[in-house]
C-alpha cells in the first residue's frame, strides 16, 4: 500500500501537475468554457428554456391534456398582448400589419429590416421589448405544435427515419403510457450533450497524460533493476498499474466535481428527474425509459470506464515502448479513433436506439476482455522475464 502511495506521488510530480493544469485550462478556454458561458445559447433557446422552467413549476414533470389547455390559453393571452401592441404601433401600420398573425405570416420576408430593428430581436433585449415577446411566442408555438402533433406525429417521424420495428414499438409504448408528455427541456439536454462530448475528451486526454510515463520513466532512468531486486520485486508492475488507476480516478473525480459545479447553473436540476424522451425533446432516445439524471449517471460511469480502460492500455504501452515518441504517437492515434469512432457508441449515444440493444454491452465486454487479457498476458511475462535494462 505504501508503495502504491509512493507511485501515486511519482505520477503527480510537479511537472506533470503543471502540464495537466495547463492542458485543462487551455481546453476549457478553447472548447468547454463557451458552453458554460453561453447557456442557454441564443434565442429562442433562452426563451424556450425560461418557459420550460415555468412549465415544470406549474404542471410538474408531465403536462396532461388539461394542463395543455392551460398552456394554450396562456399562449393566446400573450398573443393578445402582441396584437394590442402591434395595433397601436405606427411602425407596423406602415407595412399594413394590424395584428400578430398578419405580421407572423409575412415575417420571413426580407424587406422588413427596419421593422426588425424597431422590434429589437437582439440577444440582450429586455423582456418587455416586442422582440422578447415575439421570441416567446415563437417558442410557445413550436411546443404547442409538438405536443398537439402527439404520438401520431412522433411515429411519422420515426417511420420516416426507417426505424426498426423494435424502435417503433419502444416509441409506441412511451406514447401509450404518457411518458412522452414529460416536460423535458431540449435546451438543457442539448447543453449536457455538448458538455459531455467535450469533457469526455478532456477526461481521456488528461488520464493518458498522467499515465504515459508510468513505466517508461523508470526504464529511462534505469530504476527497474533496483525496483525489481527489492522485496516488492516484480509485483511492482501490478502496484504501478493500481497507482495509475487510482490517480486517474482522482483526476476524473476532480474534473467531475468542477464540471458539475459549472454545469449545475440556471436551475438545470429542475429537469433531472423528468423522463428524457418527450414530445419536447427528441434526443437522446434510449432503449430504456430513462430520466435525465439516469442518463447523466450512465454516461458519467461510461466516461470513468472508458478512461480507466484507456489507462490500462497506456500502462501496457508504457511498459513496452522504447521511447516517448512511440507512445505519444500511438496514443494520438487512440485519441483520434476515440473522437471519430469511439465517443459516440461508447459514451454520448449510450443505450440509444442508434445501436442495437446488444451492441454496446458487447462492445464494452469485448474491450474489457481484450484489455484485461493482454494485461494478464503481459503480467505473466513480466514475472518470468529477464531484466536486461
Amino acid at each position, binding site marked *: 500500500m505504501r*508503495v502504491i502511495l509512493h507511485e501515486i506521488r511519482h505520477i503527480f*510530480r510537479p511537472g506533470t501537475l503543471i502540464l495537466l493544469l495547463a492542458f485543462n485550462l487551455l481546453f476549457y478556454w478553447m472548447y468547454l468554457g463557451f458552453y458554460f458561458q453561453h447557456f442557454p445559447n441564443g434565442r429562442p433557446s433562452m426563451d424556450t428554456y425560461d418557459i420550460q422552467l415555468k412549465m415544470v413549476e406549474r404542471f410538474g414533470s408531465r403536462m396532461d391534456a388539461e394542463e395543455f389547455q392551460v398552456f394554450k390559453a396562456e399562449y393566446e393571452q400573450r398573443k393578445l398582448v402582441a396584437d394590442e401592441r402591434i395595433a397601436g404601433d405606427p411602425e407596423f401600420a406602415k407595412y399594413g400589419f394590424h395584428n400578430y398573425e398578419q405580421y407572423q405570416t409575412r415575417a420571413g420576408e426580407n424587406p422588413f429590416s427596419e421593422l426588425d430593428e424597431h422590434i429589437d430581436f437582439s440577444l440582450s433585449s429586455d423582456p418587455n421589448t416586442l422582440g422578447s415577446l415575439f421570441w416567446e411566442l415563437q417558442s410557445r408555438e413550436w411546443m404547442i405544435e409538438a405536443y398537439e402533433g402527439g404520438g401520431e406525429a412522433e411515429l411519422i417521424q420515426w417511420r420516416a427515419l426507417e426505424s426498426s420495428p423494435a424502435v417503433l414499438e419502444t416509441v409506441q409504448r412511451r406514447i401509450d403510457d404518457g411518458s412522452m408528455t414529460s416536460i423535458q427541456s431540449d435546451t438543457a439536454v442539448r447543453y449536457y450533450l455538448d458538455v459531455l462530448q467535450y469533457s469526455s475528451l478532456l477526461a481521456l486526454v488528461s488520464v493518458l497524460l498522467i499515465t504515459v510515463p508510468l513505466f517508461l520513466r523508470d526504464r529511462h532512468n*534505469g*530504476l527497474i533493476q533496483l525496483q*525489481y*531486486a527489492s*522485496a516488492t520485486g516484480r509485483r511492482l508492475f501490478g502496484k504501478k498499474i493500481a497507482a495509475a488507476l487510482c490517480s486517474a480516478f482522482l483526476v476524473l473525480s476532480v474534473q467531475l466535481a468542477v464540471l458539475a459545479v459549472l454545469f449545475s447553473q440556471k436551475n438545470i436540476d429542475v429537469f433531472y428527474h423528468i423522463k428524457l424522451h418527450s414530445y419536447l425533446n427528441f434526443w437522446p432516445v434510449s432503449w430504456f425509459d430513462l430520466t435525465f439524471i439516469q442518463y447523466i449517471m450512465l454516461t458519467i460511469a461510461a466516461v470513468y470506464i472508458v478512461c480507466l480502460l484507456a489507462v490500462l492500455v497506456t500502462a501496457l504501452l508504457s511498459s513496452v515502448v522504447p521511447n516517448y515518441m512511440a507512445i505519444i504517437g500511438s496514443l494520438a492515434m487512440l485519441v483520434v479513433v476515440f473522437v471519430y469512432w469511439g465517443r459516440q457508441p461508447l459514451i454520448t449515444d449510450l443505450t440509444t436506439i442508434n445501436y442495437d440493444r446488444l451492441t454496446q454491452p458487447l462492445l464494452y465486454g469485448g474491450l474489457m476482455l481484450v484489455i484485461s487479457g493482454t494485461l494478464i498476458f503481459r503480467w505473466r511475462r513480466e514475472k518470468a522475464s529477464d531484466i536486461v535494462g
Partner: protein
Amino acid sequence: MLNVHQVSKNFGSFQALRSIDLEFANGVYGLLAPNGAGKTTLIKMLATLLFPSEGEITYNGENITAMDARYRNLLGYLPQQFGYYKNDSPQKYLTYIAALKGMSQAEASPRIAELLKLVALEDVAGKKMKKFSGGMIQRVGIAQAMLNDPKILILDEPTAGLDPKERVRFRNLLTSLARDRIVILSTHIVSDVEPIAGEVIMIKDQRILYKDTVDHLCRRIEGRVFETYVEHDEAETFRSRYLSLSEKQESSRLKIRFLHEGEAMPGWTPVMPNLEDLFIYTYRDGQEQEDKEPAK
C-alpha cells in the same frame, strides 16, 4: 549460505556463463574479471533479475526464485548502472527505496539518517540529486543497498566514480560489514578487492577460473615474477619476449616488472607476485573477452 549450482546463462544463442558452481559464506568476495566477462550477468542472477538458463541458485538450500520476496528481503543490491529520479533528494529517494523494500516509515527514517551520515551526505540530504557529482550519486547507491541491513550485499562496480579517499572509507566499511554477512563486489580494478576480499573469484571463458584467497592466488605465479632494468631502446624486444606486468621510469632506464616461466637470468630480481600480476597474466590475451561480445 548462498550457493550457485551448475548455473549457465544464455542470451539467445550466446552463452555468457557456463556451468558455474559457487559457494558464499559470510565475508567479502571480489568478483574480478575484465569487461564483458560476465560479472554483471552473474550478479543479476544473484539479484533475481535474470533467471538461470540452467542450474539453480539456493540460499540455505532453498531456491531463491521460489523464495521470492523472502530472498530479496535479505538482499542489498547496487546495480552497475543505478537509476534515480533526478529531481529527488537522497532523503526522498531513500524513502522510496525503503518502501519498495517493505520497510515501515518508523524503521526507515532513523535508518536513512544513519546511512546518510555513514556515506557523508547528511549535509545534502534534501538537495536535488541532479546537481550531484558521480561519486555522490554512487554513495547514495551504496546507502540504498544497505537500507534493509541486508544479509547478502551485492555491489556491481561500486567504486566507480569514488575518489581515493572515498575508496578507502568504502573498503573499510565493507570489511566491517562483512563480519556477519555475504558481501559480493564486482570490479575490474584489482586494488578495490586485493586489500579486503576474503576470496577472489575470477571468470574466464564463461567459467569460474579461480575462487581462492588473495594469498593462494598469488602463489600460483610465485617464482615467475621478476623485476629488472632495461634501456629504452631494448624495451620493445624485452616486451615481445616476456609478459610485462608493470613499468616505471627510473632515471634514464625503465624498471620493468614481468613474468617469465623459465630460468631466471642474471640481473633479474625475483619479487612477490601480487593480484594485479595474476590478473594481467590471466587475461593476457588482451581483448579476447571483449572480442566475443555480440554486436548490440
